């Protein structure tokens, strides 16, 4: 029996599922509006039940996203596991040195993988990227949701800016998820069809030793795994 390393709690895995389900619905309904003048966009809007139903679907998904975002913020503020998660995600000065290792490893001038802790700097950047992106989308989205009432609060040009940012930021998030996340967890050699840790919440000790050496050493030291 291969030893396992627990990577995500059940709560974190559920949050992840709720997050990506809501993001998929938001992306589909949002992009179909953005590309309403194309045949595909019109087909999608039809599929979503028309222009108005599309809007309702988008806002329902937004409520789900808002709920999971609020839940996550409470969990990282008030639960021990949540606080540990944020600590693991916090960038550290030593990450700069590890970036160099990562570049050297990628270029082939060193055979040792970078000495990442629980999360690589790329994963850290992704976490805070998601937080920043979701925050932007929620704030701009709420103003847009208010519609004419929101327009009374902000001058017209700021409302236009809100709409612009909502669309462009949404597009950016969609592209990152589509190209990078899809590659990393699904398509990268060895991962296809997917990295199962999002369901099981764990990786093998061997994988941990290979990809997250610093974390592996820490787990050995604390006795959480036996070498």
């Amino acid at each position, binding site marked *: 029996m291969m030893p396992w390393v627990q990577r995500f709690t059940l709560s974190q895995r559920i949050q992840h599922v709720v997050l990506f389900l809501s993001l998929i619905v938001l992306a589909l309904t949002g992009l179909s509006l953005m590309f309403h003048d194309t045949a595909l966009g019109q087909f999608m809007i039809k599929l979503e039940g028309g222009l108005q139903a599309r809007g309702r679907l988008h806002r329902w998904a937004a409520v789900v996203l808002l709920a999971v975002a609020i839940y996550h913020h409470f969990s990282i503020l008030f639960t021990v596991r949540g606080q540990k998660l944020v600590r693991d995600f916090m960038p550290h000065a030593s990450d700069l040195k590890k970036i160099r290792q990562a570049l050297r490893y*990628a270029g082939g001038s060193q055979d040792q993988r970078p000495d990442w802790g629980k999360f690589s700097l790329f994963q850290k950047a992704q976490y805070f990227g998601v937080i920043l992106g979701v925050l932007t989308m929620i704030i701009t989205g709420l103003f847009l949701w208010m519609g004419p009432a929101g327009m*009374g*609060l902000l001058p*017209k040009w700021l409302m*236009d800016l809100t709409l*612009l940012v909502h669309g462009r930021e949404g597009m950016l998030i969609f592209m990152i998820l589509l190209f990078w996340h899809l590659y990393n967890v699904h398509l990268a050699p060895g991962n296809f069809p997917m990295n199962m840790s999002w369901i099981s919440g764990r990786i093998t000790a061997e994988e941990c030793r290979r990809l997250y050496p610093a974390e592996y050493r820490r787990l050995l030291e604390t006795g959480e795994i036996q070498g």
Partner: protein
Amino acid sequence: MRRFWLLALMTAIAASALVQAAPVQKCELCHAKPGFQKVLPDKHVVSLYVPPDSLANSVHRRRECGDCHRDVTEIPHKVNPQRVDCTTCHYIGNLVGAPEMALYEQYRESVHGRAARAGNANAPRCQDCHGAHDVRVPTQEGSSLSKRNLAHSCGRCHVTVYAKFAMSVHGKLLEQGDQTVPTCTDCHGEHTIESPEEPSSSVFAASIPNTCSKCHAAEAIVAKYGVSAEQVDTYNESFHGIATTFGSQKAANCASCHGAHEILPPNDPDSWIYPTNIPKTCGKCHPEANANWAKGKIHVDASKKDAGIIYYVANFFKWLTLLTLTGLAINIALDLYRRVRGHRKT
């Protein structure tokens, strides 16, 4: 010799009678007198005077009175002649050489034609727009349907609409002799004219952007008036435009904000879209509209510099997206390269 003079005299009399016979029709004995009129029981005075040159200058210059007024068979006529029915000649396949056009049938199905068939005595028939005795080719100067006269002809019935139109940017330019600006039929159609409530109408809510765009999306037409041709595109990208495209009849179209017959240039303080009037104009649908609604451009194109901060933020996102994706692509390429290399080693 005597016989000769007698013959000559008789010939002269006959000749003069022949010469006079053609122009002096019996109808003109009465109808060529300028003051010829009748007074209706309600004291309404109807002129029955037909200026002699009106028919002579018309497309029907070779027709006789009786060709159209077929029910007049004796003079003086004891019963009032009926209105002339143009379709006695103007139908497809006619034998008298009248132009054969599908327009006659189109009129039958128009809002005017249907009203006329339903027995509305006020509904316009051919002669109400084209003229009666003085009917001319519409492109001809002096025709009641020439670019310059058409609005006035429609205005004989549509009085209040005409009064508004005459004061509008389109109406004023038309009055100055501009041949490009729209007159009634350019937006409403001619023989196909429909009520704005009918989906087939060119001024049906959902069709208005399309109708206005015939000119306002054409750089060649609107540029000389200093009007941007992009307003239609920016509208189509707006909330209102998208809703209209998808069949909403509630969403604002061009005329909802700019007005239709009363449309004025945006720098005219009476224009519906003059900044101080915007809260009121938007307020027709959005009671919460306030001065904030006028702070910024309405037709915004993020790809144009005059969009201000919108343009710069759009550019920022363009580069942010490009750089991020490039970075991610390099990251993926490096990862794949390392994996392939790693395989070779082992």
